[in-house]
C-alpha cells in the first residue's frame, strides 16, 4: 500500500477523532460551567425563597414546586394516553392502522415545542371562559402533556415490540384472554416502558417555550391550577437575560439543579438498562 493512501487514511481517522472532540467539548463545557457557577449560588435561602427580581434574597422554591406540579399534570395526561396508545399500536393494531398511528406519533414528536405553545395559547389561554382563561398552570400542564403523549406512545410500542413473539403465540395457544396476555407482555417489557416514561418526563421537565405562552411565570407559590405558575425553566430564562449579577448567578444555580436532575435520570436509565436510544 503506497504512502499517500496511508496518509489519507490517517487523515480521515484523525478527522473522526477531531469530530468526536468537537462533539463532546460542549457537553463538557456546559457541565463544567453549570457546576462551578451553579454551586456558588446554592444556599438555604435559594431553596426556601420564591423567585424575586428585586433584592438579593430570591430563590427557586416556587420554581421547583411549579415544575413538579406542571410535570405531574402533564404526566397524568401523557402517560396513560401514551401507554395505552402504544399498547394498541404494538398489540392490537392492524398492520396498517398501527403503522399510521406510529407514523403520526413520530411526526408529532418532531413538532416544535413553541407550536404546541401556540396551540394551547390560542385554544386555552385566550379562549376559555372567565375563571379559566389567561395564563394558567393548567394550560402549561396540558401543553406539556400533549408533548408527552407521542413520546410515551413510541417508547411503549417499541418496548412491547422487543418482547419475543413466542410469548404471544404461547398465550394464544393456551387460550389465555388477549387482555391478560397483553398484561403479561407488558410485565415483560416493564423496564422498557418505565424508562420510556422517565425519559419523556425528563425531556418535558426541561421545556421552556410552551410554558412562556401558557404558565407565564410567577413570583408566588402555587395559587391554584388556574393561576400563573413559575417553573425551573422559566426561572432560568427570566434570570439569564437580566444582566443583574445576582440574578444571573441564580440562573446558574437553577441550571445546575435542573441539569443534574435531567442528566441524572438519563444516566441512571442508561446504566441500568443499557438502552439504545430512540430519540425522546
Amino acid at each position, binding site marked *: 500500500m503506497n504512502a499517500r493512501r496511508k496518509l489519507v487514511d490517517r487523515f480521515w481517522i484523525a478527522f473522526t477523532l477531531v469530530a468526536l472532540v468537537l462533539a463532546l467539548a460542549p457537553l463538557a463545557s456546559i457541565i463544567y460551567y453549570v457546576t462551578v457557577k451553579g454551586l456558588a449560588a446554592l444556599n438555604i435561602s435559594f431553596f*426556601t*425563597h*420564591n423567585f*424575586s*427580581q*428585586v*433584592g438579593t*434574597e*430570591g*430563590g427557586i*422554591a*416556587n420554581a*421547583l*414546586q411549579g415544575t*413538579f*406540579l406542571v410535570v405531574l399534570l402533564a404526566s397524568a395526561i401523557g402517560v396513560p394516553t401514551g401507554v395505552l396508545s402504544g399498547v394498541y399500536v404494538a398489540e392490537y393494531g392492524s398492520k396498517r392502522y398501527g403503522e399510521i398511528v406510529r407514523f403520526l406519533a413520530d411526526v408529532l414528536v418532531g413538532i416544535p415545542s413553541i407550536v404546541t405553545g401556540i396551540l394551547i395559547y390560542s385554544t386555552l*389561554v*385566550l379562549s376559555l371562559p*372567565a375563571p379559566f*382563561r*389567561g*395564563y394558567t398552570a393548567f394550560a402549561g400542564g396540558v401543553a406539556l402533556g400533549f408533548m408527552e403523549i407521542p413520546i410515551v406512545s413510541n417508547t411503549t410500542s417499541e418496548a412491547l415490540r422487543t418482547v419475543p413473539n413466542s*410469548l404471544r403465540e404461547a398465550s394464544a395457544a393456551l387460550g389465555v384472554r388477549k387482555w*391478560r396476555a397483553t*398484561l*403479561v407482555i407488558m*410485565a*415483560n*417489557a*416493564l*423496564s422498557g416502558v*418505565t*424508562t420510556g416514561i*422517565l425519559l419523556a418526563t425528563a425531556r418535558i421537565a426541561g421545556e421552556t417555550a410552551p410554558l412562556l405562552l401558557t404558565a*407565564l*411565570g*410567577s*413570583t*408566588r*407559590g*402555587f*395559587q*391554584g391550577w388556574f*393561576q*400563573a405558575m413559575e417553573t425551573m425553566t422559566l426561572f432560568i430564562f427570566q434570570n*439569564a*437575560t*437580566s*444582566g*443583574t*449579577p445576582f*440574578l*444571573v448567578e441564580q440562573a446558574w444555580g437553577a441550571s445546575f439543579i435542573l441539569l443534574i436532575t435531567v442528566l441524572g*435520570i438519563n444516566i*441512571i*436509565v442508561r446504566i*441500568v*438498562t443499557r438502552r439504545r436510544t430512540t430519540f425522546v
Partner: protein
Amino acid sequence: MNFNRRAINTTTTALAVILIIVIIAFAAYAAIGVGKTTVTETETISTTVTGSATTATATVAVNECPGTNITLSSYTPPAGKISLTAGGSTFVNPIMQVWVAAYGNLTENEAAPVLINYAGVGSSSGQMGVLANTFAYAGSDAPLSASVLAGYKSSGPMLQIPEALGGVAIFYNIPGVSTNLNFTGPVLAAIWNGSITTWNDPRITALNPGATLPSATIVPVHRSDGSGTTYALSTYLATQSPSWASTIGVGTSINWPTSEESAKGSSGVAGLVSTTPDSIGYADSHYALSNNLLSADIQNAAGKYVAPTVAGFSAAAAAAASTLSTNATATIVNPPASAATAYPISTFTYFLVWANQSNEATAWALANFMNWVVTYGQSYSTGLNYSPLPPSTVTADQHLVSQINFNGQTFTCP
C-alpha cells in the same frame, strides 16, 4: 396468572425505587409550602447615584383613607385569598415587584389577603393582556391609544392611572471608559439611526473632552418587544431630530433603521449591553444601577447635562404640571428651558384597568391595592430611583381609583 418472574427483576425494581424517591422528594417539597416573599418593608437597593433610600411606614392599616380621618366604606370583601395575575411594563417592574410583595405581606393576615403576580412582559403585552382580560391590570409607560381601545368591546372606560415617575437612562459598555459621558439629543438620535458609527466620532468627543473614546464600532441595542420605554425615548428623539419622526417613528415598536441588536424586556437590553463591548442601550434608570452600567448625562433644553436622578424626574414633572392637570397621560419628555434641573427623558408609567369589573373580590382588591400604591407605595420610590408622584397627581389618581366598581359598588375613599 403467572407473571414471568424474570420481568420483575432488579432493573425494574431499581427504576421503580428511583421513581418513587424522586416523586416523594418533590411532593414533600411542594407540600411543605413554598417560599417566603422576599421583599420586606425595608427592602432597598443601594445606589451609586442617588441619595438616601427610604423605608415605608408599614404599620398603617391598608383600608384607611390617607390624609383624612375617614375609614373606608363598610364594605367587607368575601373571605379568602385573592390571587391576581397582572403584567406589562418592565420600566416599572423593579418597583412593582416591591409593591406587590409588600402589599401581600401587609394583607396576609387579613380575611382576604391580596396576592398579585406581576409579569414584566413589556407595555404592549400588558395592554393586550388587560384588553383580552388575561391580566387583571396592566403596567404601561405608553398610554393606550383610543383607536386600539375602540377595537375592543368594553362595558365601560379603561382607567389610565399614573403610578410611578422615572426616567429612561442611556447606558453603555465601552472598554476603558469608566466615567459618565455627556450626550445631546441630536447625537443620541444619530447613534440610533446609524449616522454616527464609531465611539470616537467628533460629535461625541466634542461633548466629552476628558474621555478617551476608542475607534470601535458602536453596537446600539433596542427593545425587541413592544415597549413603553421605546415610546418615551422615541417621543424624545422626535423632538431632537427633525427626520426621526418621519423615518423611524414614535411608538412602542418603531422602524429601527439599521440591522441592530435587540432584546426582550428592559432587563434583556441591560443584560445584552453588559455582555457586549462597545454597546449602548436604554431602559429605566434602575436597570443601569443594578447592572453596574454607566449612565449618560443628557443635555436638557436649558443646556445643562443632567443625570437620570430622582430630582431630575421630579423637575420634569413639575415643569409639565399644567398640561398634566388636563391630560394625565401627556408626555413629559423634553421639558422647556425653564426647568434647569430637569432630566429630558423622564416619563410617568400607568396602571391600565377596566373601571367596570366583573368580579367583586377582584374589584375590591384592585381598588385598594392601587389606592395604597399611589399613596403609601410612593415611599419606596426614591430608594429604587423613581420619584414620588407629585401631590396633584396623587389626588387625581385617587379620584380615578374610586371609579373602579363592581355593578356600581365602589370601594375606596372619595
